[in-house]
C-alpha cells in the first residue's frame, strides 16, 4: 500500500507540470468561451469537464438560450471541425452518412456526407433535437458515440477527436421518439442550459448588438486556444493525476447505494413512495462517469486529490439522466430526480 502510494506520488510530480500547463489551457478555454457566451458559467464549466473527460453530452434547455452559440464557441476555441445536424422525423441513418444528388451530367451521385468528409478532424458534432429522429438514427449515433467510428462505402471511418452533443426537445411530445434508457445511459452528462438569471447578463443579451450576430460574436474568439488533438492524452493524464483515496471511494459507493435504494438509506421525499420510486439505472458505467467527471473537476480546481465536493458538484448532471423512475413519477421526473439527488447528497456522510 505504502509502495503504491509513493509510486503514485512520483507520478504526480512528473505529471504535475504537464497538468498545470493543461489547466492553464483549460482556463483559457473557459475564459475564451465566457467572453462570447454570457451568464452560462455553469454550463461552460460542465462542458469543459466533459471535454477533458472525453464524454458525450446531452443538452437540455429552452429554445433560443444559446446552446448552438455555446457549442460553436467551444468548437472555435478547440479547433477542429464543427458539424451540426437537425433531427427530423423522416431522417434515416443513410442521411447521416451519404450525400445523394444529381450531378451536372444528370446522373445520380452518392458521396460521403459532410459528417464523413470531416471524420479526421471533427471535434464537435451537434445533433439538434435528437428525439425528433427515429430509433434507427439513434442506433447509428450511439455506435458513433461508443466506438467513434461508422461503416460506409465498404470501409470504416474513424472519428478520433469526436465529441457528440445532442439536444433534446423537452417541450413537444408529438412526433418525437424519446431516448430509451439504454441510450441515455451512454451520455456522459446531461447539461441543463437555461436562460441566464443574472439581471445584468439578461439586459446585455437583449440590448447589446454584439449578441445579435452570432458569426461576428464568434469572431471574438481569435482561434483555437488549445489543440483538440491532444485532448485524448490530456484526459488520460488528468485521470491518472488525481488521487482517489479509500474514503472518497467509500463515499461514492455509499452515494450509489443511496440513489438506487433511497428508502433503505433513510431518504424520504414528500408524497412519494420511496420503495417504488427508483426502478433502475445508475449503472456502474454511470458511476464510473461520475468519478471521471469529478476527477476533471478536482483538477480544474487545482487539486491533485478527489474530494466529496468534486463528486457533489457533478453528481446531478452525471446521475440524474441515468435514474429510471416508476412510470407514475416519470411525468414529474425533473423535479423528483433533482430533489432525489439533493436528498442523497444531504444524507450520505462524507468522509
Amino acid at each position: 500500500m505504502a509502495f503504491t502510494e509513493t509510486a503514485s506520488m512520483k507520478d504526480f510530480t512528473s505529471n504535475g507540470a504537464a497538468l498545470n500547463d493543461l489547466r492553464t489551457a483549460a482556463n483559457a478555454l473557459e475564459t475564451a468561451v465566457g467572453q462570447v457566451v454570457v451568464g452560462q458559467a455553469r454550463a461552460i464549466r460542465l462542458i469543459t469537464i466533459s471535454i477533458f473527460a472525453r464524454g458525450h453530452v446531452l443538452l437540455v434547455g429552452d429554445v433560443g438560450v444559446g446552446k448552438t452559440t455555446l457549442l460553436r464557441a467551444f468548437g472555435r476555441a478547440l479547433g477542429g471541425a464543427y458539424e451540426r445536424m437537425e433531427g427530423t422525423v423522416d431522417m434515416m441513418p443513410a442521411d447521416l452518412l451519404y450525400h445523394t444528388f444529381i450531378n451536372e451530367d444528370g446522373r445520380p451521385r452518392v458521396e460521403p456526407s459532410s459528417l464523413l468528409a470531416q471524420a479526421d478532424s471533427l471535434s464537435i458534432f451537434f445533433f439538434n433535437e435528437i428525439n425528433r429522429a427515429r430509433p434507427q438514427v439513434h442506433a447509428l449515433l450511439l455506435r458513433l458515440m461508443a466506438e467513434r467510428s461508422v461503416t460506409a462505402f465498404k470501409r470504416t471511418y474513424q472519428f478520433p477527436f469526436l465529441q457528440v452533443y445532442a439536444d433534446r426537445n423537452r417541450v413537444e411530445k408529438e412526433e418525437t421518439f424519446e431516448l430509451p434508457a439504454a441510450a441515455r445511459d451512454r451520455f456522459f452528462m446531461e447539461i441543463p442550459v437555461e436562460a441566464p438569471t443574472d439581471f445584468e447578463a439578461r439586459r446585455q443579451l437583449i440590448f447589446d448588438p454584439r449578441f445579435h450576430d452570432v458569426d461576428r460574436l464568434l469572431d471574438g474568439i481569435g482561434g483555437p486556444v488549445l489543440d483538440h488533438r491532444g485532448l485524448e492524452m490530456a484526459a488520460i493524464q488528468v485521470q491518472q493525476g488525481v488521487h482517489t483515496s479509500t474514503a472518497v471511494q467509500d463515499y461514492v459507493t455509499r452515494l450509489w447505494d443511496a440513489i438506487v435504494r433511497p428508502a433503505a438509506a433513510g431518504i424520504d421525499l414528500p408524497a412519494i413512495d420511496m420503495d417504488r420510486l427508483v426502478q433502475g439505472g445508475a449503472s456502474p458505467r454511470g458511476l464510473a462517469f461520475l468519478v471521471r467527471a469529478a476527477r476533471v473537476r478536482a483538477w480544474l480546481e487545482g487539486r491533485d486529490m478527489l474530494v466529496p465536493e468534486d463528486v457533489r458538484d457533478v453528481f446531478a448532471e452525471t446521475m440524474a439522466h441515468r435514474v429510471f423512475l416508476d412510470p407514475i413519477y416519470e411525468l414529474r421526473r425533473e423535479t423528483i430526480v433533482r430533489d432525489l439527488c439533493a436528498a442523497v447528497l444531504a444524507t450520505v456522510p462524507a468522509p
Partner: protein
Amino acid sequence: MVGRIVLALVMVLLVGAAQAQPGANDGQAVTVRAERDIGFFAGDLVTAEITIATPPGASLDRASLPVPGPVTYWLDLRAITVAEHKGAVTLRMTYQNFYVALDARPMEIPGFSVRLQVGGDARTMDVPPWTIGVSPLREVAPPAKEDPKAYLQADRPAGLADAVRWWAVAGGLAGAAILALLPLAYHHAWGPFRRRVDRPFAIAIRHLRRLEARGETEEGYLEALLVLHRALDRADGRRVLADDVQTFLDRHSVFASLDVPLEAFFQASRRAFFGSASAQARHDLPFRDLLVLGRALAVAERGRT
C-alpha cells in the same frame, strides 16, 4: 233535593238511551261509551270511547276528526286517539269540563260527523251528542284572615344533600383532567417535555475525551475527525463539506468566531481522508487542537436557540 234526584235519574235514562240508540247511518252502528255519566266537577276530565262500525274496505278520513281545542264555552277537547280495527274504528275522546255548576244539571256534549272512505266514495257517519251530569264543588271555608298572604304556608325547608360524595367525584374528575394534560403537554412539548436544543458538540466532546484517554493513535485521530464531522452535520441538519464552511457559519452565527479553526479542521480532514496523508494532517492539526476546537464549538453551541 228530590227534584235533583229525579233530574239525575232522567239524565241517566237519557244517556242510556243515547248509548243504546244506533246511529241512523245505513244501519251501521255508532256506539258512545262514557266512563261515567254523572258527578263531573269543574276541571274534571271526561273520557268517552266511540266505536264506529265500518263496512269492509272502509277507512277513516282522519282529516274529518274534531281538532283538540275549545268545543263550547264550557268544554275543551283535550285529546283524541284513533284505533282502527277490522270492521270498526274506536275514537278515544278526552274532554275537560270547565262548567262551574251551582247545582247538579245535565250538560250536552255536542255530537260531530266523521267521514269514511269506502272505495272511491265518501260516507258521513254522525256521532250523536250525549249528556253528562255536572255537580257543584263543596264549599271551602277557612278561618278568615286579614292578609291574603297569610293563607299561604311557609316553604318547607330544603333538605341537605350529602356533599362529601360529590366532592370526591369532583376531585376524581379534576385528577383525571390533570392526567389528561400529560399526553397533551408531551404532544405539544410543553413544560417538562420541552425539547432541549440539540447539543451535538457536547456529545462530541465527551467522545473526544474518551478518545484522548485511550492515548493518541492514528485511528483515534481519524475517529476524532469523524466525530467532529458528524457533530457538524448534525448541527446543520445536512452534510457539511469543506467548501460549505462559509455557508455553515452564515446559517449558524454563534460559531462565526470559529471560522479560522474550522477551516483548519476541514483542511486537515481533507488531507487525512482524501489526500491519504494523515501523518501530515496530524502534524498540521494535532489531536489537542481538535479537542480545543471541540470545546470551543461545545461552548458556542450553548448560545443556540
